């Protein structure tokens, strides 16, 4: 029997090793798997490379992981925000490495990893500082930049509903990077607000097929850190 349901957030993040590349879903706090991040902080893995759109907001979630000094490098598109004080301080002190990637290149590099693409040419960032030193090519009159995939050792993703095969559906704009990160990591752990029986998710509407998911833990909406904060 296939059963990807685990009983605790601790079990969901087990095995994340020092130096791992961990993809974390979310766009700001929407879709951020706060309970799994808290479990990762408690688990203690360090020297992590984190892939996320941002670099933490406020003091909780990803910002708390940064504050705990577990992150060696962050790959993201938009670190600087009004409430990114934790990242800002580490960056100014030279205590965290930043790989800044245009958001669409970030998404496509993650997608490429999950889809087995070795590299791809994209027009984004051609002629800018973010393409410096990268291979370029003119294709049918337009210039492109060669970009490589970003593979994850682990992905932490938040979903609205999941079943024991790991099929997922998301909620509104909390979907964002979840589906592509789930496919790009060797081990994807999901915190789902609801776990349902096989067959309850409409097969025509499943967004992430279970093949991409290793672990699912139920984290109800009421106890999510970000929803408590938002209320």
């Amino acid at each position, binding site marked *: 029997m296939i059963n990807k349901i685990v009983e605790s957030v601790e079990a969901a993040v087990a095995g994340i090793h020092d130096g791992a590349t961990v993809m974390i879903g979310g*766009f*700001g*706090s*929407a*879709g951020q798997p706060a309970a799994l991040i808290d479990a990762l902080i408690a688990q203690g893995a360090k020297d992590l490379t984190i892939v996320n*759109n941002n670099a933490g907001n406020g003091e909780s979630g990803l910002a708390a992981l940064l504050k705990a000094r577990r992150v060696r490098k962050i790959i993201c*598109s*938009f*670190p*600087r*925000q009004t409430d990114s004080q934790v990242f*800002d301080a580490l*960056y*100014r002190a030279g205590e965290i490495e*930043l790989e*800044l*990637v*245009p*958001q*669409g*290149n*970030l*998404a*496509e590099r*993650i*997608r490429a990893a999950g889809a087995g693409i070795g590299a791809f040419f*994209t*027009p*984004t*960032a*051609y*002629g*800018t*500082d*973010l393409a410096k030193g990268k291979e370029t090519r003119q294709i049918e009159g337009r210039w492109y930049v060669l970009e490589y995939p970003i593979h994850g050792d682990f992905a932490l993703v938040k979903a609205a509903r999941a079943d024991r095969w790991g099929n997922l559906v*998301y*909620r*509104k*704009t*909390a*979907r*964002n*990077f*979840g*589906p*592509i990160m789930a496919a790009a990591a060797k081990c994807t752990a999901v915190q789902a607000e609801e776990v349902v029986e096989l067959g309850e998710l409409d097969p025509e509407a499943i*967004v992430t097929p279970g093949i991409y998911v290793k672990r699912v833990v139920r984290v109800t909406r009421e106890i999510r850190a*970000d*929803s408590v904060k*938002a209320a």
Partner: protein
Amino acid sequence: MDRLNRDQMAARVARDIADGAVVNLGIGLPTLVANHLPKDREILLHSENGVLGMGPAPAPGLEDHELINAGKQPVTLLRGGSFFHHADSFGMMRGGHLDICVLGAFQVSVRGDLANWHTGGPDAIPAVGGAMDLAIGAKQVFVMMEHHTKNGESKIVERCTYPLTGMECVNRIYTDLAVLDVTPAGLLVREMVAGLPFDELARLTGVPLLREPQRAYA
């Protein structure tokens, strides 16, 4: 001469967005355009975090923190709207499926180079978001900005001194003084605010401008 205020600029941009257009409004000044879209036109707003058919801000108390725009503010979804993941969202841009994006800018060059993501200052923490993807992706790139910096320097320049967002990507510039098209021959002034002579606009801009038979900027 009367400079346009921010809402007047937004209304002017909105007038050029046709019925049926799919549009991405950048963070900051361009967001105001949403408030001025003509009511008799059906215009689809795209948000890079995975929304097509974005609606206005919800009433107080009805915010959903899992339904936000690229600026991370709560929004709503129109009937018929859809959600999708980030790679699809940026595929829509890169693939040329968006009709228009409206972006703010630090500088635009006479060739249509855009600088809007980073001042390049030694102390500045860089953040790019989706700006570079939007700049090269939409069929038409509109820039909406004040004509001058707070120090009175023209933001329309021969060559951008700030780091580039995209090369030769801007089609049209809307400022508080004028509407200009980027053409192979140079910057063509389409409209100017009332009471502003062409020669004065050229002096205030500091780069060569082309003129066509004038229309009032209203």
